[in-house]
């Protein structure tokens, strides 16, 4: 059970420590700056934090000692944009996802839709040209931002060259050869925000977040703009899960690291309001692969609560028991029993962008 976690927020990176049953803020780095994503410390203490400075652009910082000291490193940079290139400008808007792949390779998903990798922990970054040059990329569009973005990076623990990613709004894509070629993996998803004849177009799907079960990597869960989907074959086919109580709209999902049938969602009132249903915050949990759900609310505010939990605002620890959940209005809750009960860690943090154990 981890005793350390991280909250990337609108106003800095917060290191959280658990003492007994209580989490508290141990350290704040980059106070005042938006931290859009982090890569939690590796076994050797190295970690990354992605900043989005309001005036001066996106920056990446690396630490060799688990967040005590930081130094600025290179940031993914788009190549010169050819004359006449359509679509969004080839300019880095945000680092929206970071993941450690095989052999020390770090993957970075960005707005406006480029995937980058670094084999030296951020000293140098390369654009994954094979994905960037996909003809279908011209069909991608923004979901939550003005430009498309890669928010989900799902390496495959047993197949080093395999990575599945999710794009708002550009569907799901998979490489099995370390990024040299890509296949669409959105089959089964459905987009009601499109004309009916294009509802199943894989290039226009808006998966809000995709997560992979580490111990059974063929199982993936997706909180999509139009509902909940699950795949048991590595994303070849997605099957809609329609049994979630209250609402199947939301932004986030977490999967139990050892139990692929167990996943957590935070429902919200679709689509225009985007607040907890009935202004009462709950977590929906399935333990049978989506055949049924329990709605968990113990310890969570049940009246006049307008907290929204964004894509990366729900984290599950390696034990599958400990959870953290942070909201757009700066509330942070913890559970040590798989979401059965929650306790408030902080009520006045900056808006929470991402939570990570480690």
């Amino acid at each position, binding site marked *: 059970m981890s005793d350390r976690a991280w909250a990337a927020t609108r106003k800095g990176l917060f290191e959280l420590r658990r003492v007994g049953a209580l989490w508290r803020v141990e350290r704040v780095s980059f106070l005042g700056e938006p931290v859009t994503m982090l890569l939690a410390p590796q076994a050797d203490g190295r970690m990354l934090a992605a900043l989005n*400075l*309001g*005036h*001066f*652009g996106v920056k990446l910082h690396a630490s060799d000692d688990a967040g005590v000291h930081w130094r*600025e490193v290179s*940031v993914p940079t788009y190549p010169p944009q050819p004359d006449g290139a359509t679509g969004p400008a*080839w*300019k*880095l808007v945000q680092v929206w996802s970071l993941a450690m792949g095989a052999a020390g390779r770090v993957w970075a998903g960005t707005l406006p839709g480029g995937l980058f990798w670094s084999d030296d922990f951020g000293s140098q970054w390369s654009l994954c040209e094979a994905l960037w040059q996909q003809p279908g990329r011209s069909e991608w569009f923004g979901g939550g931002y003005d430009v498309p973005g890669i928010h989900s990076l799902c390496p495959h623990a047993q197949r080093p060259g395999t990575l599945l990613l999710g794009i708002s709004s550009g569907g799901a894509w998979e490489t099995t050869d370390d990024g040299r070629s890509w296949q669409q993996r959105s089959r089964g998803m459905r987009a009601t925000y499109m004309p009916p004849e294009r509802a199943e177009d894989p290039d226009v799907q808006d998966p809000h977040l995709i997560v992979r079960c580490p111990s059974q990597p063929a199982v993936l869960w997706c909180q999509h703009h139009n509902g909940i989907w699950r795949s048991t074959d590595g994303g070849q086919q997605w099957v809609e899960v329609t049994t979630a109580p209250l609402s199947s709209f939301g932004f986030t999902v977490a999967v139990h690291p050892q139990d692929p049938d167990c996943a957590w969602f935070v429902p919200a009132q679709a689509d225009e309001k985007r607040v907890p249903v009935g202004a009462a915050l709950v977590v929906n949990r399935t333990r049978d692969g989506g055949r049924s759900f329990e709605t968990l609310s113990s310890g969570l505010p049940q009246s006049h609560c307008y907290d929204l939990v964004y894509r990366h605002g729900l984290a599950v620890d390696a034990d599958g028991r400990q959870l953290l959940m942070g909201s757009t209005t700066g509330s942070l809750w913890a559970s040590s029993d798989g979401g059965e009960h929650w306790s408030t860690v902080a009520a006045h943090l900056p808006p929470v962008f991402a939570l990570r154990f480690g």
Partner: protein
Amino acid sequence: MPTVHFTPQLRRFVDAPSVQTSAGHLRAALEDAFAGNPRLRGYVLDDQGHLRANVVVFVDGERSQDRQALVQALAPASQVHVLQALSGG
């Protein structure tokens, strides 16, 4: 010689002392500043070498309208100020 001054706000992130230059236009003057301070480039220019959306340049008190080519001519005594644009409230 033209002089390029950078907003003190940048000092939170990167050294940005004023730089004297013999450059005849804006981009060359900025390049002179970046030559001794490579990290500064990414704070002022974006991936395509354009002025960042929320950075503004004044040349001798006039806001530079050219945000991409940056070929505005400088006089020998020009004063260039690289500032953060005010946005929001």
